[in-house]
Structure formats: C-alpha cells, structure tokens
C-alpha cells in the first residue's frame, strides 16, 4: 500500500491542528453548549487554553504515555477537549457508548486496560464503580457534573474542573513535559480507539491513526466544501466513528463550530436555535421527524392541512429537480417559490433545517418517500456508505447525483473492488491500523495489500457508477429452491411504512419467508387514538386485530414490490407476526447503533419462528427483558400469527 505522507509543514496530529486553528481563527467560536438556558461559547483560543489545562491536570494525576483513557457521557465540549488533552499527553482516548449497561462497559474497559475513566455524571460514576468490582486496572475516575458526588470516596476520584484547576496551578511544572509528549506524536501515532458495536460477537477496538483521521477529514471536507463558518450539532454518540470525524476530525481540519445540545430531550429545540449548516443523522431521526410532522398536520386545521397538501404535491413534483439544478418550467418555479414562503420555509425552520447546506444520512437504508420528502423541501440530503474501519467514508453521493437507492461513488482517495461472491472491498488512507489486541480479526478483515472486507454484498450500477448495497454478505443466503435470499432488502421495504419500526425476515434454506414486525408506537398509537381504539399497553396494541390487519396490508404491498425484482422475488413474506415487545439494545437484540442482531433474535425467538413455519394460528410465549438499570423481568404474551398474500415473481426482461 502506498502511504501518502503529510506535506512538510502541514499539521500531522490533532493537537497541531488545534494550534493551527488558534493561530488562524483565535476569536471565532469553536464550541458552544447550551447550559442554564443560554448558549455558552468558547473561541478556539479559549478552547485551547481549556485543553491545555486539562492535559496538565491529567499529567498531575499521573497519566503516562500510551495509557488508554475511556470517556463515557453525552456530547459536551468538555469531553471533546478531554480527548484532545489525552492525545496531547501521548495517551489514547477511547469513547464508549454511554447507554451501555455495566456488563458491556466492563468488557471494553478490561480489553483496552483503561487507567483513567472520564464520565459525565453520578449515574456513570456508579456504573464505573460497579465495573471496578471485576475490572481492576482503573486508577482514576474523573467526572464532569458535580451533582450528588459529595459523599463519594474521592481518594481516586476528581471533578474535571478540579483537574483543570490543578493543571493551571501547575502550569510551569508541566509545561516542559507536555511539550515533550506532544513532540513525540507523529502522523502514524494512534489518534483514537473506537469500539465497533458489532452485529456478532464481542466489540472490537478499531485503532485509528492521526493519518487516518486527518487524511479522511481533509478529503471529505474538500468533497463537500466545508468551511470554517459551518455549524454542526454534536448529538450522536461520541463512541461512534461518525461523531469523531465530524466533531473532532473535520471540525479541527476546517475550524468549524461544534454545538452541543443541553440534553438529549432538548435536541430538536437546540437544533432549531443553532440552525446547523452541516448535518448528519441516521435514517431513524429523519423518519421520526417526518412521522411527527405528519401526525401534527393531521391534527391541524383544514386551511393549514390543505395548504400543506397542495404545496407538498408541488414540492414532490419539482423540488428535487430544482435542488439538482435541472431545468424546470417557470410556472412550477413560481409555485415552488410560493410554497417556500407558505410551507417549506416555516417547516424547515421548525425542524431546524433552514440553513442545512450539506446533510447526510447513513448506517441504514432510508425509505425513498422519506428521502424524497426532505429533498423536495430543498434540503440537500445525501447518502454515504461507511464503516468505523474506514474512518467513515467509503462512498458518498456528489451534489446533483443523489438517489435514494444507491450509496454514491467512491469517496476521494478510496478504491473499491467487488469480489466474486459480491462482497465489497475498499482501500483508502482512512483504513484502520488494526483491531486492538486482536491480530486474527485484523488479518481476517484487512489483507497485506490494505484491502478491507466490508462484509456487505453490493454491486456497481451500470451507467451511473454508483454503488448499491444489497445486504450483509453473511446474511445473504439461498432459499430452498436456490433463489437468492436477502432479508435486508425486504425489511427495508417494510420499514418504510411509518407504522412499522423494525422488521426481521427469516427464510435462509427454507421454502418460504416469514417475518417479525415491530410496530412504531408513535404512529400506531396516534392512529389508534384517531380511530377510537383503546389500549393499555404496547403489547395489547401490538396484538389488536385492526393493527394486525393494517400490518397485513403493508406486508402485502411490500410483497408486491418485492415481486417486481426478478432476482429477489422469492423473498416475499408468506406469514408474519407482530412482536409483543420492541426490539432493544439492552436485551442484545439490536446493536447500540440500532442494527438488528439476526442470530440472537433467531435463537431467542426460536419458538415463534417454528410456530410460523408450522402454520399455527397463535402461540403463547415468555420473553426475558432487561430494564434500563440492568434488572431482568419476564413478559408473557399470546401472539396471533397471520398469513399474507404473495405475488408471482416478475421475469427478468430479456434484452432484445
């Protein structure tokens, strides 16, 4: 693999980028956080001062070169500063998912051998203390929020403020050693270690170097013309590679401002106040927003409802074309301009999208209706395809070539090849160094030439050169009759119905497909309210005959659409059931990034799958659930199993 090295004089690590930003934009806002109802902001110069104080405080606590420091908490400037401070000290930041239960945290903390842990508040301190009963390498715990912490044993515990204060006090003492540690950082030293949530097995620690992060940030910032006056909202988990690239990599590279919401619940309000110009969200966020908009419009007065309907029709017809700069008639342009004044403008403002110049969605496929809705409003929403191992970017959609069914062209600097079995491989400057303490997995994933297996099956579309992803390569199988089985393809079609939150399709090596469905409580609950259907629990609503009937219609519509595909037409759903509980990461059924863990669900609900294939009409089942605090309970239910009509599969058109 050819290693491009940084041009001489260019920054070769994140602390150097910080220094460059301080020199370039000392008085420009670098971080904002809403606290006590007011947006507090810090300039690059102030942020650098904070970072240095934290770094020196960490040295005072005895942080060594090469140590691992775990960070657990919601997005806050102090965490981002801490990460850079850790890097300055020659140590490695390891952000973790804050909603992980103690057991999951224990594995990661043990595996990376974290000596220091920086957490948000008392709740997480308690989790770490619980973990410390089994994991013994943790020497110091540092917390951000002092509330409720007075009574704890502080022998090896500090508030971050106090750590920084000590760093300031010891400035002259630590100046030299901090400089020395920084000088030792080079382009290939570790920038961050991120644990992948993994749809199978234990999480793996992906080691990313400064080279990975800086090259990727540079390329992707150029691709979308990101500038220093852009604004982002940092609300996605800090343990996720995307947040690291956006809120640290690209922010440091371009010097744009990172805004942190007040709390997870206020995110929508905060977004409206900030009006980010560069925005990233998984499809679920867009789905939820659209569902909320639709529900509120149904409750709105007749005038508003009619205006919304009329102008959304216009937007759907011509919006995407206008956004892509294609020719549109004067009359349509005029209608769209009026719609913008009356509907789209106010709606975008309410959603916080008024200033979005570049928006991305990734992680899962997004429904074409959802995608088109946002694009038709004039929001430049695009798709990208990425992985932690690639420092996010593998492919992305250039402006003007945006479609809902592809993931775009290779990102700058990325090479892609498709293996004979359809699996996608890539090679790029962003390719990870290794899986920490796991040479076997590293060798399995990355070959000697630097090609990385994505585990996804896909193909390049003729003509456009866009990549299309079908499914996880290991999930793609064969039906009993030899036709191709790609569960995700069908599940995505189902999930595009607002009433369906999640779907899991089974059928590998079987003669026909069956499915589990999760209803979306917001959408179905609202529907129930409007139709005077009373229910007392999620479980009761999920088994209501009218709900089942509605889901059956959705399944049959999805079948009709699946039948159009000559290759995958065999994956139509013959029978289905609506699950009595929402699939949950706490129960291990989803990953922390909310991807379905097929194997686990298959094992856990084996009785339900068997019943579906045995043509039973109903089945009694008991399921273990884990509550947020880690306690376990059981829910019992009798589920109705339903049949769905299937369509004849369309024949492939023979080329003439």
């Amino acid at each position: 693999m050819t290693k491009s090295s940084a041009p001489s004089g260019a920054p070769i690590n994140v602390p150097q980028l910080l220094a460059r930003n301080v020199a370039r934009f000392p008085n420009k806002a670098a971080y904002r956080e809403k606290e006590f109802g007011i947006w507090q902001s810090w300039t690059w110069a102030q942020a650098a001062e904070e970072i240095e104080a934290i770094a020196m405080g960490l040295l005072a606590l005895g942080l060594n070169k090469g140590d691992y420091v775990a960070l657990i908490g919601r997005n806050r400037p102090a965490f981002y500063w801490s990460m850079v401070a850790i890097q300055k000290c020659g140590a490695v930041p390891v952000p973790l998912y804050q909603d992980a239960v103690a057991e999951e945290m224990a594995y990661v903390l043990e595996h990376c051998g974290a000596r220091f842990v920086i957490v948000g508040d008392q709740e997480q301190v308690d989790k770490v203390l619980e973990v410390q009963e089994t994991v013994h390498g943790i020497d110091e715990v540092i917390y951000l929020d002092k509330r409720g912490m007075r009574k704890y044993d502080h022998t090896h515990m500090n508030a971050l403020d106090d750590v920084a204060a000590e760093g300031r006090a010891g400035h002259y003492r630590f100046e030299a050693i901090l400089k020395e540690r920084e000088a030792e950082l080079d382009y290939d030293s570790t920038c961050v270690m991120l644990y992948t949530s993994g749809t199978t097995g234990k999480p793996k620690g992906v080691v990313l170097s400064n080279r990975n992060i800086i090259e990727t940030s540079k390329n992707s910032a150029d691709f979308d013309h990101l500038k220093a006056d852009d604004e982002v909202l940092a609300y996605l988990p800090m343990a996720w590679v995307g947040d690291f690239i956006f809120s640290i990599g690209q922010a440091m590279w371009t010097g744009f401002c990172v805004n942190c919401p007040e709390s997870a619940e206020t995110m929508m309000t905060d977004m409206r106040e900030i009006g980010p110009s560069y925005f990233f969200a998984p499809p679920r966020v867009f789905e939820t927003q659209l569902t909320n908009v639709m529900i509120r419009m149904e409750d709105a007065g007749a005038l508003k409802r009619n205006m919304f309907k009329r102008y959304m029709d216009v937007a759907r017809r011509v919006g995407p074309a206008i956004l892509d700069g294609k020719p549109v008639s004067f009359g349509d342009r005029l209608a769209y301009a009026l719609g913008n004044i009356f509907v789209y403008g106010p709606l975008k403002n309410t959603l916080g999208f008024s200033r979005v110049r570049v928006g991305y969605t990734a992680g899962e496929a997004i429904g074409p209706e959802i995608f088109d809705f946002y694009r038709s409003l004039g929001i430049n929403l695009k798709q990208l395809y990425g992985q932690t191992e690639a420092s996010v970017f593998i492919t992305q959609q250039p402006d003007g070539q945006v479609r809902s069914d592809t993931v775009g062209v290779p990102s700058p600097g990325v090479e892609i090849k498709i293996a004979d079995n359809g699996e996608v491989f890539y090679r790029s400057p962003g390719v990870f160094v290794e899986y920490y303490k796991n040479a076997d997995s590293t060798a399995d994933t990355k070959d000697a030439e630097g090609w990385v297996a994505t585990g996804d099956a896909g193909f390049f579309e003729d003509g456009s050169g866009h990549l299309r992803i079908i499914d996880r390569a290991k999930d793609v199988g064969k039906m009993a009759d030899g036709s191709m089985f790609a569960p995700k393809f069908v599940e995505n079609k189902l999930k595009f119905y607002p009433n369906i939150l999640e779907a899991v399709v089974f059928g590998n090596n079987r003669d026909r497909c069956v499915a589990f469905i999760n209803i979306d409580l917001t959408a179905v609950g609202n529907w129930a309210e409007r139709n005077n259907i009373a229910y007392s629990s999620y479980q009761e609503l999920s088994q209501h005959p009218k709900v089942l009937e509605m889901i059956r219609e959705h399944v049959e519509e999805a079948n009709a659409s699946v039948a159009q595909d000559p290759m995958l037409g065999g994956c139509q759903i013959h029978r289905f059931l609506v699950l009595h509980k929402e699939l949950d990461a706490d129960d291990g059924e989803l990953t922390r990034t909310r991807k379905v863990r097929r194997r686990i669900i298959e094992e856990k609900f084996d009785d339900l799958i068997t019943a579906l294939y045995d043509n039973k009409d109903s089945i009694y089942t008991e399921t273990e659930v884990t509550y947020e605090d880690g306690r376990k309970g059981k829910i019992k239910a009798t589920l109705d199993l339903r049949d769905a009509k299937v369509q004849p599969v369309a024949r492939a058109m023979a080329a003439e």
Partner: protein
Amino acid sequence: MLDDTESYVTADGRTIGGVVLDLKSITLRFGGVEAIKNISFDIREGEIRAIIGPNGAGKSSMLNVISGFYVPQEGEVWFRGERRPQMKPYEVAQQGIARTFQNIALFEGMSVLDNVMTGRLNKMKTGLWSQALWKGKAEREENENREAVEKIIDFLEIQSIRKTPVGRLPYGLKKRVELARALAAEPTILLLDEPMAGMNVEEKEDMCRFILDVNDEFGTTIALIEHDMGVVMDLSDRVVVMDYGRKIGDGTPDEVRNNQDVIDAYLGVSHD
C-alpha cells in the same frame, strides 16, 4: 434521647442539626370536628421528616398548620427557638418555608419557566412600575432570578419542557414543576404534600432521587406526607404516624415499623 440543640451524623454521612421547628400540643378544630388532637413533634435541621397515616388522619391539616394556612385553636409553633406568632402564609414563606400541594396548584396556562419564576416572587424587590418599564434595576433583578431558576431547571432535569405550558404536561412532570417552584424560593424548610401520589414506579424513583438530592445539595430540611410506605421508609430519617387526628407513633422508620399501634392503624383492627 437527643437534646433539642444537639446534632448527629446519619449512617450515610449527613449531618442532622438541632430542632428547627417545634410543634407543641397542636389542636385544630373545624366547628365540632377535631382534625388534629393535641399533637407535638419536632423537625430537625437538615432531616427528612415524614408524616404518614391513613386517609383523613389529619396529615395535610398538619402541614397547613406549619405553612400558616390554618391557625390552630390550641398549641404553639416554635421556629428556631422562638415562639411563632400567628402568621399569614406569605409571612411564613418569607421565613424560608416553601411547599407543594397535594392537588397540583400551578398556573396551567403559563409556561414551566414562568411558573417557576413565580417562586422567586419573595426575592424580587423592585416595584410594579419599574418592573413594567423593565429598566435598570428591574432588568438586572430579573436576570439574576432567571439564573437562579435555570439552575433549578437544570437540577430537576426539566430543560426540555422549559417553554411548554404546564397544562400540556403529564401529571408526573407537573409534580416536578411544582417542586421546582417551591425550590425557587430557596427554602430552608420544604413541605411536600404527597409528592409521589398517582405516579408510576419510574416517576416515583425519579422523585425520590430529586428529594434526596435537594436535601443533600442544598441542605434543605424536608417534611413530607406520603402514602407509599416503601418510599417513606427508604427516604426519611424520622417518621410521625397519625391516625384520626392523633399521633400514634414517632421515631426512626424501624421503630415505627415495629410499633403495634401503627400496625393496627394500617392493617385495621376491630374497634369494639
């Protein structure tokens, strides 16, 4: 038995001070009905003191005596070592005693923020005119009060409903807003009338945590009425038990739990 002025340290490391509020032989009548019959008990600085009892035992009346809403026919209320003269509720509030109500008493049409701001009324010194013109001192004063209120909003984690009209909130959150308003007055003694009534388990757990945090962070003395025995026993340092207007028990949760009169009152016993 402790002396009135002695302080002690609890098992979880909080310091409980001397008696701050002493109720001596209180009797309260409504016409011919005796709601409270000759009850005496005290509240110590920094403690969480629970008043429990079956329905109609006179618990809320007792709280209303403390808050100055009812004037007892007999008996004395001593506050910080001095006998308290007959007072209007607002005068009691000025002494640093704030309360929440059993049936939520918030301004439904106003936002959460405005409701909590009303709790600062005692702290506002500028007059009607300067507040209406909102210049100079009044503006400064509002900013200071807003800051104090925002800290409470942050403390009780109700940032996301800051601008929401109270009428649109679910019950559990309204209770929390009421607590926020009481806290806004920066009370030294906080009276909570059934803070957890009608809540589900999760809301109760949240509320318990907030009550403990308030006591711990601000050192606020808390007197609360509660039905949920589990909550009371976990939360409070000392418990007063009332039945038919009489005091039938007083002591630590363990003492009260083993008191035969209390068991009878709760489980029922034939009255012949």
